[in-house]
């Protein structure tokens, strides 16, 4: 096997705890559920796990944003680790999946357990919703009333509306498309139908973004076993990593990003496509980050599914992005409807799709899937297949 190192890598198992709103479960309890499920799904035992990583691995629970540390999980499971990474970089999102892939392709580990736990719904239920950036103490933000990433997302949206004529009625289809798929997903938090009138009537959060443009704080843990393809067995149903992109061009700053015609997604997508002979037309199903709806539109353009400025028209009406459309998109419902698992929900769903285990929302014959996460200065993208 030649090519980029990540092509040596498979996702051999996936696991998910109970997920939803205000489960009232301990973060560690959810994490153990997801990790044991992923290990069992890979046909392995905990003693087979020799790599371990999560993000963010930092002190404090930050309103349910931070789960158990790598140190704690290693201790509890008594893992003999040949590689580990408790990631602290604030721009990580799914960066730990890329790191795990590098570790197994470098043969530092055979089976890396990657996990991510969120209990934001329970944490927010206990007190006033956390203003993430408001607590950052960053004087360049707080001094000007900037307390949430939604305000940056809104300025990217405003730029797109102004420059390309994109409308709220078009942007709505990111939410509407996700919601109709969520109706077919038993794990989704919001599954009842959403109409364009519901969307347009909802309260504004930061113009032009309203309530349904913002994802839902949720509770739940996800885990993946990332393995070297040499260690797969005939009985496994692996998902193969074809290529990945992790680039962060220009700056790490949300506040001082130089040009709202771009996001880090553009550099990341370019890197992804430079590492594979496949292209946008080969993708059967996509999960594109919808922490804020506008990011999905900008990823569509960055990845070349449509031209610059054309994403509003691309999603409008929902035909192209439905389960039988040219690009089935956010088939789990995405973070807007399934729940906010900060990227891991998209990977979980893509593995279900590529193993043809997605039930009523299965994209028939899906072979190539693309997951791309982040917005603004954050971006990672993974091209996955079920073909060896």
């Amino acid at each position, binding site marked *: 096997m030649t090519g980029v190192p990540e092509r040596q890598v498979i996702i051999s198992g996936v696991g998910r705890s109970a997920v939803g709103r205000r489960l009232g479960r301990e973060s560690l309890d959810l994490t153990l559920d997801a990790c044991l499920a992923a290990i069992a799904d890979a046909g392995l035992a905990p003693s087979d796990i020799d790599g371990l990583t999560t993000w963010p691995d930092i002190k404090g629970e930050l309103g349910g944003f931070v789960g158990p540390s790598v140190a704690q999980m290693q201790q509890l499971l008594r893992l003999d680790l040949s590689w580990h990474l408790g990631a602290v970089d604030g721009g990580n999102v799914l960066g730990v999946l890329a790191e795990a892939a590098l570790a197994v392709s470098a043969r530092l580990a055979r089976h890396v357990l990657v996990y991510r736990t969120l209990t934001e719904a329970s944490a927010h239920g206990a007190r006033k919703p956390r*203003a993430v*950036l*408001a607590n950052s103490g960053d*004087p*360049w*933000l*707080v*001094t*000007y*009333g*900037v*307390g*949430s990433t*939604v*305000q940056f997302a*809104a*300025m*990217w949206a*405003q*730029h797109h509306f*102004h420059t390309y004529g994109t409308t709220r009625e078009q942007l709505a289809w990111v939410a509407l498309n996700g919601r109709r798929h969520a109706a077919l997903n038993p794990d989704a938090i919001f599954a009842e139908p959403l109409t364009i009138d519901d969307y347009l009537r909802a*309260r*504004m*959060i*930061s*113009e*032009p*973004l309203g309530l349904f443009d913002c994802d839902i704080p949720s509770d739940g843990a996800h885990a993946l076993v990332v393995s070297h393809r040499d260690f797969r067995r005939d009985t496994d149903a692996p998902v193969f990593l074809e290529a990945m992109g992790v680039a962060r061009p220009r700056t790490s700053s949300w*506040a*001082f*990003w*130089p040009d*709202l015609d771009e996001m880090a997604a553009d550099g990341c997508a370019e890197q992804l496509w430079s590492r594979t002979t496949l292209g946008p037309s080969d993708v059967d199903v996509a999960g594109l980050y919808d922490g804020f709806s506008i990011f999905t539109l900008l990823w569509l353009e960055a990845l070349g599914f449509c031209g610059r400025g054309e994403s509003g028209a691309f999603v409008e009406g929902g035909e192209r992005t439905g389960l039988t459309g040219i690009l089935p998109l956010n088939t789990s419902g995405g973070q807007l409807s399934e729940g906010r698992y900060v990227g891991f929900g998209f990977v979980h769903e893509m593995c279900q799709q590529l193993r043809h285990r997605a039930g009523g929302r299965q994209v028939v014959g899906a072979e190539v899937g693309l997951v791309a996460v982040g917005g603004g200065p954050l971006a990672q993208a993974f091209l996955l297949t079920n073909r060896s």
Partner: protein
Amino acid sequence: MGAEPARPVPVVDDLTREFWTGGERGELRITACAECGRLFHPPGPICPSCHCRRITYVVVSGSGTVDSFTVVRRPWIDGYETPYVVARVRLRDQPDVVLLSNIVGVDPEEVRMGMDVEAVFETRAQVQVPVFRPTR
């Protein structure tokens, strides 16, 4: 208005003092490279263009344009009653310099993309916070 919580006061350090206090003299002060002369923001100890470490402050015109903005409808920060406008302002002196700021002195509904704006200063404790209003 007296009952409203105060707006945040930024922590000032040696690097940022001139930005936060230039308003005492009605001046918008921006960091510039002593070698290549280019402006940059936020203040830092190194020029992002030529990586020279000699940094100075210069007084700019205070004129700019609204690169993008959002009318904030949900409250996030004490002292900021909704609605208020958060904007990216490009400086006329060097348009690749973007300031994250507020647009004041105008109905939030009246703010437009590309609008010409000028710096004004909001007194908060010992600092003068640069914000922008439509050019008169």
